[in-house]
């Protein structure tokens, strides 16, 4: 791997930790029920009064989960209705027609579940009104929902003999008002400074540089992009204003905007690891969870960058120059922006699939098979390596429970984690959480490859076509939202299938997590003894990494063997033919 790649990685983590530490102090304060001063605090109290919410009320996990699911269900209906009536709604200078029922349903579930899978193309389907009031609003609320669940689970660990795990309405309002909104305003202004557009203009016809071309004029899509771009990244949503997402120069114009977008994706997930430590009163616990995430992430980023810098042996065979020089990036540049090159594209892909974001600045479909396997597997690990806002932490803590359970079985002791006994009920709920997404991915993929409608969407036959389907279902079930592309997913079949998968991938995961939070909150905290497994040291970090990787490997390797693994072996065979 080139020195530039290592430098980029080191600078990235330096800036990330430098920003996440102070943010974690604020996030910890937000989790506390005490009133917040200032104009935003006053607005918060006004919202409670208007909505009839008692901010002091503590909710049981059942009440918390019911409020959460009903609130998000209402979100689906609103987003669906706005899309179905957008032709008669304002801010529609391109006179976009109403969105089809299947696409509207898919998009509504997609944005409410923080997946932001996009079967449609933004610039040719949605009005500015729909982008702003339906999609951008859900970008905030879905991220705040994830944050709320993370708070509830941390409270479960931190509280002693408590009946409640917090108040969903307070967590949702505070996450939106005091965290996501201020960060988004800052980022939107920064992005506008970099050249991201923000307007309500009609699309602009421009004359191309080559006037002799078959199409001497080109239409440039416009819109309020910067405001949506900010929350798209910081809320780990990932749904692009334009179809090309962060590869579009109006969404991601410069290397600096690209770097900031990468930081934005990891900012809250990293800070939440520190929040976990702070709320427990033992910051080492947060560092341990973060340590496990960083180790997996760095290995994956190195493999992806190496695979792409190595180039494509098939292109070598036909005489293409893939060497690194002052004139070109070298390696496999297919589907990558020349503005970003291989390192920034590979790092972005690793981050976006670790962070459950789904924004893309390169075509994942064009990665080498080994390079493409990395983002797919990161998604399949359950989006626990940093993960989405809130979702990454609560997912990783579930793996931590599994890790201490396995350790407990090995040494014959009742497992415990950060002072809470892990008993049968928690393990039953953990099992549901760990099994639900693989079930959705593998059964969904099986349905797609066995039906005519499923196979009709595949544009590449053979192993690569299978990879495209597997990636799509993995992305939907784990609420990532990025696509391998190369698959025509805007059909009634895929729109319905992925909508069902996204819904259960989100809420069939969250409900057992909240059940664990409720159960843990009621328990007493037990004192550390000589027999307690330390969960802040290298041994536990290794155990946690092993659990995440083993569960991911055992679940998905057979499916991966039919897709990217076969493709890589085919490439190796060509490579051997050309060199011998």
């Amino acid at each position, binding site marked *: 791997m080139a020195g530039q790649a290592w430098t980029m990685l080191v600078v990235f983590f330096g800036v990330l930790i430098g920003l996440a530490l102070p943010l974690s102090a604020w996030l910890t304060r937000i989790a506390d029920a005490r009133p917040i001063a200032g104009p935003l605090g006053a607005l918060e109290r006004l919202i409670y009064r208007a909505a009839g919410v008692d901010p002091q009320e503590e909710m049981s996990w059942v009440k918390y989960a019911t409020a959460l*699911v009903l609130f998000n269900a209402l979100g689906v*209906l609103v987003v669906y209705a706005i899309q179905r009536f957008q032709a008669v709604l304002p801010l529609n200078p391109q006179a976009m027609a109403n969105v089809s029922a299947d696409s*509207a349903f898919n998009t509504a*579930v997609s944005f409410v579940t923080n997946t932001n899978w996009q079967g449609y193309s933004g610039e040719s389907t949605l009005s500015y009104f729909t982008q702003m009031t339906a999609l951008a609003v859900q970008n905030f609320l879905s991220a705040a929902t994830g944050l709320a669940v993370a708070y509830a689970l941390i409270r479960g660990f931190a509280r002693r003999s408590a009946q409640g795990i917090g108040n969903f309405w307070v967590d949702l309002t505070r996450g939106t008002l005091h965290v996501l909104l201020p960060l988004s305003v800052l980022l939107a202004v920064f992005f506008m400074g970099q050249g991201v557009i923000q307007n309500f203009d009609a699309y602009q016809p421009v004359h191309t540089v080559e006037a002799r071309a078959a199409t001497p004029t080109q239409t440039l899509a416009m819109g309020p992009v910067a405001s949506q771009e900010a929350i798209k990244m910081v809320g780990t949503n990932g749904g692009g204003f334009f179809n090309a997402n962060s590869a579009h120069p109006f969404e991601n114009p410069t290397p600096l905007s690209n770097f900031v977008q990468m930081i934005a994706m990891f900012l809250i997930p990293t800070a939440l690891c520190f929040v976990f430590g702070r709320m427990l009163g033992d910051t080492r616990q947060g560092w341990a969870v973060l340590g496990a995430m960083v180790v997996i992430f760095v290995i994956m980023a190195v493999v992806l960058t190496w695979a792409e810098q190595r180039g494509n042996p098939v292109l070598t065979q036909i005489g293409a120059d893939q060497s690194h020089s002052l004139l070109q990036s070298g390696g496999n540049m297919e589907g990558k922006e020349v503005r970003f090159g291989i390192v920034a594209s590979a790092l972005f892909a690793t981050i976006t699939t670790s962070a459950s974001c789904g924004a893309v600045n390169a075509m994942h479909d064009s990665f080498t098979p080994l390079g493409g396997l990395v983002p797919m597997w990161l998604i399949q690990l359950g989006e626990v390596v940093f993960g989405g806002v809130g979702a990454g932490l609560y997912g990783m803590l579930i793996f931590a429970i599994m890790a201490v359970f396995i350790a407990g079985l090995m040494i014959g002791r009742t497992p415990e984690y950060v002072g809470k006994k892990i*008993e*049968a009920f928690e393990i039953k*709920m953990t099992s549901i959480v760990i099994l639900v997404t693989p079930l959705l991915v593998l059964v969904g993929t099986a349905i797609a490859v066995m039906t005519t409608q499923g196979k009709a969407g595949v544009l590449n036959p053979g192993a690569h076509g299978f990879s495209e389907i597997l990636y799509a279902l993995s992305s939907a079930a784990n609420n990532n939202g990025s696509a391998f592309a190369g698959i025509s997913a805007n059909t009634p079949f895929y729109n319905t299938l992925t909508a069902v998968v996204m819904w*259960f991938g989100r809420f069939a995961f969250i*409900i057992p997590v909240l059940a664990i939070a409720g159960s843990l909150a009621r328990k007493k905290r037990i004192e550390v003894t000589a027999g307690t497994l330390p969960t802040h040291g290298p041994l536990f970090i290794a155990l946690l990494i092993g659990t995440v990787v083993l569960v991911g490997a055992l679940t998905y390797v057979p499916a991966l063997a039919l897709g990217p693994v076969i493709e890589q072996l085919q490439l190796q065979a060509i490579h051997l033919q050309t060199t011998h």
Partner: protein
Amino acid sequence: MDIVFIATFVALLLLTYALLRGCALLEKRKDRP
């Protein structure tokens, strides 16, 4: 077509509610002596 997708969504909600009640039931059983 709208009615098909609204009905699908209602089915998703009912299944989600069933999961929630199922988890709550398991928790109650845990507390039995």
